[in-house]
């Protein structure tokens, strides 16, 4: 997937994707209907998968589409259906809540942006065309050497197992009636 290597061509694709993401991102949090917001989130995730491709992380893009869009969005939609919040009256929070929320988010954005802009990010001068291959990614999951990440891989498996069991216990309807 080296066609992304020439630079200025990928630049405009990036702007396209970024624009879409900004547009849909904004609407996810602003729309009144919860279902529409889930859909917008899906499109934001989709475009971010595009950016991963742009950045050469193609496995990650695939994983993104699979896990995020396939898993989480479906889960969210199920949750919306289960809690019948779809026919919930428009979810419009009180004005004070909005103002405070906006103030918080904007200050966060401005401060972080300013601080990040101020700091010199060390950029690798030579941009090697060949991005890391999927094989090396897979190997790193099981490599117990210094550069490998076998440990987190195991931990993730334990966590997911635990969460599944726990989630089941919590979500299940209790046997004896209250």
């Amino acid at each position, binding site marked *: 997937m080296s066609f992304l290597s020439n630079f200025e061509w990928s630049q405009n694709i990036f702007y396209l994707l970024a624009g879409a993401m900004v547009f849909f991102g904004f609407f996810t949090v602003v729309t009144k209907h919860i279902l529409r917001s889930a859909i917008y989130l899906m499109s934001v995730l989709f475009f971010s998968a595009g950016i991963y491709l742009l950045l050469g992380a193609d496995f990650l893009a695939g994983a993104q589409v699979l896990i995020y869009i396939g898993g989480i969005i479906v889960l969210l939609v199920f949750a919306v259906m289960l809690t019948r919040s779809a026919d919930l009256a428009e979810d419009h929070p009180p004005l004070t809540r909005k103002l*405070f*929320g906006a103030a*918080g*988010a904007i*200050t*966060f954005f401005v*401060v*972080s942006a300013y*601080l990040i802009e101020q700091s010199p990010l060390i950029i690798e001068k030579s941009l090697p065309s060949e991005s890391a291959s999927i094989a090396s990614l897979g190997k790193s999951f099981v490599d117990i050497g210094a550069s490998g990440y076998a440990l987190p891989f195991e931990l993730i498996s334990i966590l997911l197992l635990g969460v599944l069991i726990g989630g089941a216990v919590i979500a299940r309807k209790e046997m004896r009636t209250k």
Partner: protein
Amino acid sequence: MGEWITNSAWLITALPLFSFIIVGLFLRPLNEKLAAGVATASIGLAWLSSLLLASHYFSAEVSAEAQKTLIPWTVEWLKFQEGVTVNFGVLLDPISVMMLVVVTTVSFLVHFYSLSYMHGESGYGRYFTYLNLFTFSMLGLVVAPNIFQTYFFWELVGVSSFLLIGFYYQKPSAVAASKKAFIVTRFADLGFFIGILILGYFGFKISGEIQTGSQPLDYAFLTHPEVLKAFLNLHLANGNSLLALALLLVFMGAAGKSAMFPLHIWLPDAMEGPTPVSALIHAATMVVAGVYLVARLFPVFSTVPDVLTVIAGIGLFTSAFAAIIACTQDDIKRVLAFSTLSQLGYMMFSLGLATMAEPLGYTASMFHLFTHAFFKALLFLGAGSIIHAVHSNDVWEMGGLKKKMPITHITFAMAVLAIAGIWPFSGFFSKDEILATALHGEHYVHFIGGLLVAGLTAFYMARIYFLSFWGKARTEKSSHAHESSWVMLAPLGFLALLSLTTGFIPFAEFVKIGAPLQQEGIDLHVAIPGTLMALLGLSLSAWMYTGTLNVPKKISVALGQFYVAIKNKFYVDEVYSFITHQIIFRFVAAPVAWFDRNVVDGGVNLTGAAMRGWSSALTLIQTGQLQTYLLWFVFGTVTASLLLWGIFLGMV
């Protein structure tokens, strides 16, 4: 033989202490009679040994060297600090031996007298214990070699008088009187203590430069000539001499104990105590402690003449003031109390007039103290025997006791003549000497005042004599009064004998100070006017109080308001109680108690309440809204980053 007596002089003081402990702790609960007996015996022993000591001390070969003061026994009581140590001990010099004799004599007689007077009273044993304690502390005061020991026993005397005045603690008036006596004398002792502080500090400074081999508070040190010179050139910030201030403060203590004018209010009320107590304490011993202190420090006082003039002034005023009031009192013991006040005034002003150059006043005052102790004790004991018989103090309820109580009558009469200053009796000689000092020192005001007071004394003494003994029994109680038992009469007789003979003792040889005295014998220029005034007083009183008693009524009506004022002792007591109750208690003690409860305490409660208020305010930020929590979270992160960045840039 001589040394043995003087060296065992401490025994005189120790005897009452041992008997106090034995009687107080062990005998009293066992059997009261035995306790009283032991107490009286120990004082008797002390009396005999003091007589022995006096005879030895004033015998020919010892008194050859003038005023030889010796300290036979001393022990280190407390080392305050390097240069300031207080030793307790016994100091023998003419006035202290004289006082030893006076105190032990009167104390023994009062003990003996009380055996029967207090018979049947509840707390009989307790009474004798307190009497022993008093005698011990009085003797301790008398023989003190330094001013600190004087102060030590000064307070103990105050406490024992408190205990004895308040002996009938069931009677509210006795309780109030004892409390008043203690507090007033305590207030005076405050001045005395501050005086000691000043003398102590500057004495310590001076003892640094001048080596006298004695501690700063010892009398030997204070009366040492160089030390006095050093003291004199110490001046206060405002210029007048420091020694004057110290001595004035010491005099304040003396004035309190000897009930001089401003601090005299406690003595009349002290009559609430049993009469033998008044005889011992408020006639012969305690009240003269002030005069004794001034006499003891006389060499120091003489270096600051204007303090002496102050003393003389107060002395004269007190004697006149008391004499006037005495004429209007109805309670026989109150009259005697005021007469004591006036005689003390006599002694004080005679001391005030004396100087080292012509020290007649000093000897006169001591002589008067000596004689007065005996006839005033006799008067009190006589009055005691009357009250014992008539069961009331009021002179108007007595009358016609001449026939019923012959011995008391005779002895009482002799005492009246003695105090009036009629020739053969001792009062004449000592009063004459005082008037002589006033005359020779050209202190005409004091001389005339003295004469007037002599007249008044004769008048009021005769008044109570005639009212109680002459005429017919005015009340039913006095009609069947009968003579007291011999146990009470024997002391009266002995004291009467003493008031007859003591006049003739050549006092000047024994007790003298400073330059030797020139003239001898009785000075007619003084004797004649004195006796005339006395006779005038006696006759006036005879005229008024023997016949139909309407003359005094007419006079009292004539004097009107002035008479009422005198009768109420010029309202001095009311002024004092106003000051203490209305001003001190209402405007100082109560506000302090209130201030503490509300303001200081309130302050603490306020902080507590503020904390609780702050806490309930702070709980409100926990609104329960998750999104508010998250808002805090975000702002927390932002501020943390900015702060860290700020610190890094060195801004914050």
